[in-house]
Structure formats: structure tokens, C-alpha cells
């Protein structure tokens, strides 16, 4: 894709369009150094987009191999040892190098200053530094994954990852710490920018929900990630010096590891989903031509998810040997965190009520998000229910649950946002029919892949199994078939979006008739974002009321 972008911009120049078109951030300078040393938030977003696309398909390749292997009970293509490395690779890459950065570093980096009416983020150099940290981290961790491989799972549970480790756990951990610093830098930048760089008149209650959710996710970036960094430092210490911090054989406590790990990793789940919710909260009103239902509730639900998300981590440890009392406390808080998520779902549906609904590709992705996220959220209740979790924990039920949230939810939202802002980012329209087709293929492919896994989980099939008893085969084959469909669904956008860079129709400044400051500047935006600093006088979703629409048409 890196190449493609270069070609796209040079193509535009070659065609002589550059003179006809006003200068924009893509055409302003075109040397490689102007990309690699840029402090422009829009270009950093592109750098990030290329990087995470690479990691997405890298993690996806591992998933594809895993699903092929699970076609037969004894493992169709690889030995258990290789399978274990595959799922570790899949988990580590997808969590830290795709899902956690995903929307904030790409769409967020691009759109947040535009939505604020600002010229850039508060600390542009730190923004560039965060991309370099991310790339260094990605390189180190990838090196560990390929050079010897890791078979610890992305959770790195001790003592399997320390005393009994095979492969270079310390190297991988170091890469993840780097990626963590990158997250912290990004989150810090967003929080300060949202506080300090709002355009005149842009009060907190006039901010689009996307900003509220990016803000909430950033809180988690900044306050949860350091705990992971310290945990991985301790893990490296244990591995390096053979000292028991977490390994009971050497006098440590493995539950200490799990507590610190999930103190980060549970809120990290909300890092992944909150920006997705933000994107959907932009798209549903835009394609229903109606203001968001219950704006303040949706806004504060984002914040409360970020806060309550820190109170629930022990629900990953209900069968790990924690005290019964603490399990009960954390079960209660886990139910509590489901409330704001559910409120959001109802508000999105309320937004569609009496709207004028258009079925452009972003909307289809967003509707898919609501459907899949609701299923994922509801099955989350099963896992928060203590006695049910005792049966379902560490089975395919959990796998299906979090893929519904993170892939069905988050990745759908990412694609929704990518299509929605694609005209703004690239100045080109994506092919609409292909967009809708891909959205539908992804939805049905996803359902076919992961719905059978709920049943597998209830029947007891444990996660991370390279081989399995033969009675689970039918459901596994169904799931693998779905994965094939899903792979097609994910490759399609890669194809037609790249195509649109060259051949797509020129995008108008506001193709969707959407509100929001980002649509008031040109597509693609000029280097300085806005010719004059915009002044905000209205709320974020000032779409015409039905009465006004009716008055206009008659």
C-alpha cells in the first residue's frame, strides 16, 4: 500500500491535475523524507494506516492457517508445536499491533484535529515519535515471533512464559513495551489536544461523539499501559535472572502476574471498542440524516465505560484461584460495565427512528457493527455470570465472544470509518457497489465463522487446542468455511480501496452531507487543515428535523 500511495500522488502529478487542484497535504511535498520526517497529523495517520494494514494481514495469515489446521481433529497441516506458535503470533500481532492502535492512530490521528477545528495535535513531534516507537516495537516483536517463535499465547501467563519459556519472550516483551510507549504518547496527545485545541465555540457538549470516545480510549491508553510496561519489565527480570516473582517454584505468585496483566488488558478491550463506538455514533446520524438520540447519554456512557472498565479485571480469573469474595465483587462490577454499552445500542437504534436512512457502505458496516456488537455484548453477560463462567471460561465460547466484540465490532467499525472518511483522506470516492458487497460478505462470513464457536464452547471445546475430539469436527469445519468467506471479505477492500486511489471518482468536500468540521474543509484537506479557523455555533449533529425536510420538499 505504501507503494500504491506513492503512485497515487505521483499519478496525480503526472496527469497534470496538480495545477488544476489546490495544494493539499498529499501533494504539498512528495519526497520520501517529507513522509518519514513529517509532523503533519494527516501524514502520520497514513503512515500508521499502512503499518497496521500490514500487521492486520500478518495476523490474519496466522488465523487462516489455524482455521485450516482445525479442519480435521488431528490437525490438518501443522504439528501442535507450530499451531501454538501460530495462535501466539495471531494474538500478539492482532492485539498490540492492530486492535489497540487501529482506529485512534489512523482515523483518530487524521480526524481528531479536523473535528476540533485545530491545525494539528498539541505535540506533533511526539506524534511522529509514537509512530517510530510503534515500528521499532513491531519489528522487535515480529523478530521474536519469527526467530524461534513464541508459544505462550498473547497472555504470557507465568510460569509458562518465564521458567518454561521457549523462544525469545524478553525480546517480544521489549517490543510490546515500545508499542506501549507509543500508545501512551498517542493518548497523551489526544487528551491534551481535546482539552486545549478546540476551535472557538467548540464546547465539550458540542464535540462529536467520536471525540468523546477517543478521549475515553486515551484515558485508558495513558493510565493502563504503564502497568503493562512494569509487568513486562518484571517478567523479563524473572526470565533473565531466574528469580521467582511469578513462578511459584521459585517463590513467586502467578496470580500477581494475572492481576497486573488484566489490570491493563481488560481496559485495553475498551481501548479497542470505544473508538469503534465513536465511529458508529458519527455514521448512524450521518446516514439517518438525523441528530443522535440521547447525545449526552452516549457521551457520558463513553466516559463511564472507560472508568468502570478499570473495575472489572478479575473476571478473567474466576477459575484461576482467586478468593470467592473477590470473584463476587468483580462479577457485580462486570455487570455494571455492560449497562453503558447497552445504553449506547439503544440510542443508536433510537437515532434511526424517524430518520431518512441511506444504505451507503459505511452505514451497512455500521449496522453490521450494531448487530455483531450486541451479540458479543450479550454473551459477555454469560461470562460475567459466575457459575456460567466456570463452565465457559477458556473455551471457544470466550473466543467467539471476544471476536464478536473485537472483529465483528471493532473491525467492522474500522471499515465503516475508513469508507466514511476515505473521500476526505484521499480525495477519491471508493466504488460504492463493491463497498456494500464487501460489507455484506464480511457480515455473513463473520457469522459463519464465529457463531458455531459459541456452540463449540458450550459443548466444552477448550481454546488453544491444536487437536480435538472428533465430535467437534462438524462445527469446526463450518467455522473454517466461514473464515474462508471472511478472508475474501477482508481482501476485497484492500483491492478496491487501492484501485480507487488511481481510478476513483474525485470526491467532493462533503459527499455525505454530513455535519462536523472535518467536512467543511477541502478533500483532501490542505496542509494547514482550515483556511481560517472555524467558529462553532451549533451542536455536533445539526441535521435538519423531519419538519424542515418536509417543508423543503413540499
Amino acid at each position, binding site marked *: 500500500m505504501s507503494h500504491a500511495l506513492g503512485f497515487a500522488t505521483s499519478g496525480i502529478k503526472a496527469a497534470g491535475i496538480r495545477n488544476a487542484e489546490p495544494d493539499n497535504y498529499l501533494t504539498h511535498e512528495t519526497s520520501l523524507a517529507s513522509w518519514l520526517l513529517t509532523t503533519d497529523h494527516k501524514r502520520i495517520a497514513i503512515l500508521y494506516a499502512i503499518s497496521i494494514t500490514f500487521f492486520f494481514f500478518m495476523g490474519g495469515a496466522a488465523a487462516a492457517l489455524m482455521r485450516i489446521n482445525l479442519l480435521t481433529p488431528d490437525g490438518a497441516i501443522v504439528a501442535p508445536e507450530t499451531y501454538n506458535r501460530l495462535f501466539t503470533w495471531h494474538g500478539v500481532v492482532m492485539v498490540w499491533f492492530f486492535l489497540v492502535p487501529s482506529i485512534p492512530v489512523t482515523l483518530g490521528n487524521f480526524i481528531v484535529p479536523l473535528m476540533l477545528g485545530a491545525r494539528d495535535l498539541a505535540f506533533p513531534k511526539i506524534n511522529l515519535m509514537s509512530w517510530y516507537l510503534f515500528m521499532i516495537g513491531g519489528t522487535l516483536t515480529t523478530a521474536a515471533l519469527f526467530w524461534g517463535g513464541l508459544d505462550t499465547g498473547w497472555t504470557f501467563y507465568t510460569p509458562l512464559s518465564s521458567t518454561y519459556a521457549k523462544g525469545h519472550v524478553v525480546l517480544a516483551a521489549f517490543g510490546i513495551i515500545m508499542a506501549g510507549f507509543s500508545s501512551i504518547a498517542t493518548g497523551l496527545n489526544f487528551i491534551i489536544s481535546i482539552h486545549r485545541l478546540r476551535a472557538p465555540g467548540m464546547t465539550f457538549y458540542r464535540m462529536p461523539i467520536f471525540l468523546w470516545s477517543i478521549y475515553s480510549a486515551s484515558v485508558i491508553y495513558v493510565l493502563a499501559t504503564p502497568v503493562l510496561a512494569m509487568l513486562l519489565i518484571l517478567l523479563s527480570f524473572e526470565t533473565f535472572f531466574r528469580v521467582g516473582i511469578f513462578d511459584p517454584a521459585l517463590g513467586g505468585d502467578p*496470580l500477581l502476574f494475572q492481576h497486573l496483566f488484566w*489490570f491493563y488488558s481488560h481496559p485495553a478491550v475498551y481501548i479497542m471498542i470505544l473508538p469503534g463506538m465513536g465511529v458508529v455514533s458519527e455514521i448512524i446520524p450521518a446516514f439517518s440524516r438525523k441528530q443522535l438520540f440521547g447525545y449526552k447519554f452516549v457521551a457520558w456512557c463513553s466516559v463511564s465505560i472507560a472508568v468502570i472498565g*478499570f473495575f472489572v*479485571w478479575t473476571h478473567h480469573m474466576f477459575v484461576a484461584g*482467586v*478468593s470467592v469474595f473477590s470473584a463476587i465483587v468483580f462479577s457485580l462490577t462486570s455487570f455494571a460495565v455492560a449497562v453503558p454499552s447497552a445504553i449506547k445500542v439503544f440510542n443508536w437504534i433510537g437515532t434511526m427512528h424517524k430518520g431518512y436512512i441511506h444504505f451507503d457502505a459505511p452505514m451497512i458496516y455500521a449496522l453490521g457493527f450494531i448487530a455483531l456488537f450486541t451479540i458479543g455484548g450479550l454473551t459477555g453477560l454469560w461470562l460475567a455470570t459466575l457459575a456460567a463462567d466456570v463452565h465457559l471460561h477458556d473455551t471457544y465460547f470466550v473466543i467467539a465472544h471476544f471476536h464478536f466484540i473485537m472483529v465483528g465490532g471493532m473491525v467492522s467499525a474500522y471499515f465503516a470509518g475508513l469508507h466514511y472518511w476515505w473521500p476526505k483522506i484521499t480525495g477519491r470516492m471508493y466504488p460504492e457497489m463493491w463497498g456494500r458487497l464487501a460489507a455484506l460478505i464480511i457480515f455473513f462470513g463473520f457469522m459463519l465463522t464465529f457463531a458455531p464457536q459459541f456452540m463449540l464452547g458450550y459443548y466444552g471445546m477448550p481454546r488453544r487446542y491444536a487437536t480435538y475430539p472428533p465430535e467437534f469436527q462438524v462445527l469446526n469445519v463450518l467455522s473454517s468455511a466461514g473464515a474462508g468467506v471472511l478472508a475474501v471479505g477482508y481482501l476485497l477492500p484492500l483491492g478496491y480501496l487501492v484501485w480507487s486511489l488511481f481510478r476513483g471518482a474525485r470526491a467532493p468536500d462533503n459527499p455525505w452531507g454530513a455535519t462536523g468540521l472535518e467536512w467543511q474543509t477541502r478533500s483532501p484537506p490542505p496542509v494547514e487543515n482550515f483556511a481560517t479557523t472555524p467558529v462553532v455555533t451549533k451542536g455536533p449533529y445539526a441535521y435538519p428535523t423531519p419538519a424542515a425536510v418536509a417543508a423543503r420538499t413540499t
Partner: protein
Amino acid sequence: MRRIVRGAALVWLALAALMAVELGGSLARLGPGFSGLLLLPAAIMVLLVGLCFMRVRESGGLARFFALAAIFWLTVLLGLGSIDPLTRHDYSVDVTQYP
């Protein structure tokens, strides 16, 4: 100029005095029940440095908000995190004879 030096010196004296209290309390061996109390002077010292050297009050509302957020989330980590260790029983405790 003199005001600046006097201000810094006063805070320094207060910090040194609190440190002496800590040190004294530790050397006096108050017993295991009191050892946690030694963190109290430390907390006051942290507060002093925050208020006088880092000038929390002079900084904007946002700085105060961030400082409070840090304290709140630290409390969540230590507080909620200690529920499990504090209520985990490695052995059945003999309730009848527990003092």
C-alpha cells in the same frame, strides 16, 4: 529574592522534619501493627512537594484534574487489587480459636 529562598527553605525544613519523624518511628520499632503508619509522613511529604514545589494549586484546573486522576486510578489498582489477596485463605482458619 529573599522571599523565594525563605519559601524553599521552609518547605525543606518541613520535609526534613517529616523525614526525621519517619526515621525515628522506624528506629523506635513500634511493632508490626504500626509499620504501616510510617507511610503517613511520607504521604504528607508527597503532598508538600506537590503543593509547594510542583505548584499544583497555581497550575490550571487541568493539571489538578490529572493529578487527582492519577491518585484515583492508583487507588483503584491498589484497592481493588488487594481484595483478592486479603480474602484469599490458603488454609482453613479455625474460627473458634481465632483471636
